[in-house]
């Protein structure tokens, strides 16, 4: 028998990964992906607090990049910020993978 909570969790994890893929393809705005990822990570059932902490840390790094760009009315990220963002997204994906396993 398949555990319903487990199935729902896996589905939400897949949704998060698909959302990140869509963002990397440029189909979703930065502000939107931040809001949706935050909501989805807090909707994951039975997630270890340490893994949630890793997700929140990676998300926080993304949020800081957005907040700084927003405060200076920067419409395009600098190359340095874009690299930082890539790194933060990689860390978030790693944490999401941990939640899946």
């Amino acid at each position, binding site marked *: 028998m398949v555990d319903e909570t487990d199935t729902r969790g896996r589905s939400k994890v897949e949704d998060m990964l698909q959302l990140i893929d869509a963002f990397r393809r440029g189909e979703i705005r930065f502000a939107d992906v931040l809001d949706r990822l935050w909501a989805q990570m807090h909707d994951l059932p039975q997630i270890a607090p340490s893994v949630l902490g890793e997700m929140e840390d990676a998300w926080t790094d993304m949020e800081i990049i957005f907040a700084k760009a927003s*405060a200076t009315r920067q419409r395009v990220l600098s190359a340095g910020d874009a690299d930082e963002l890539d790194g933060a997204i990689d860390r978030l994906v790693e944490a999401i993978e941990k939640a899946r396993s």
Partner: protein
Amino acid sequence: MAALSPATLPSRDTLRGVARATRDGGGRAGRSGADGSSCVVAVASHDRIRNGKREVVAGYTRSNPFCDRSDDSAVIPVNERGGVPPGFGQRLPSPRDPVGRLRGPIEIAPGTNPPANIRGRPYSGHALDRMQGRGISPSAIENAVRPENFVRSSKGADIYWDAANKLMVVVDPRTNTVITAMPRNVGPRR
């Protein structure tokens, strides 16, 4: 004309008088903007009665982009009713604006709030959007931004975490501006 401190804010009645005087061309406090509109020193404020005492509640200061003075950040136009003409300058936050809660956030479209200075601390528009969406008050922010709550610097921004209120605040140390704030149950990594 210097910006007024909250203690010297004009009451709504005073604003009405100033606006009327300015409109009639005799107001000493008023002057004309580039488009001919009236500009007077004012902020969004209203009177309220608390514990039997009348007090002036200060709102947010805004500059009027259409006025030709650049030295006064508290200049906005007021109409004869003491209000800001619609569509003039930036939107002013209102007590009627919806506010979310920590456990029940609401979505605030990015760019809803313009930057503002609250009790001497600058806030970015994004920070105010986050605060409105999650029901985070400026006093909670002030409570979090203390040396003992400092966690680390990240990408040129200082992260604070208030363990009691489970609140994370990010400040740009160069300008002391709050750039974002979010509730977090688990403290950020050090």
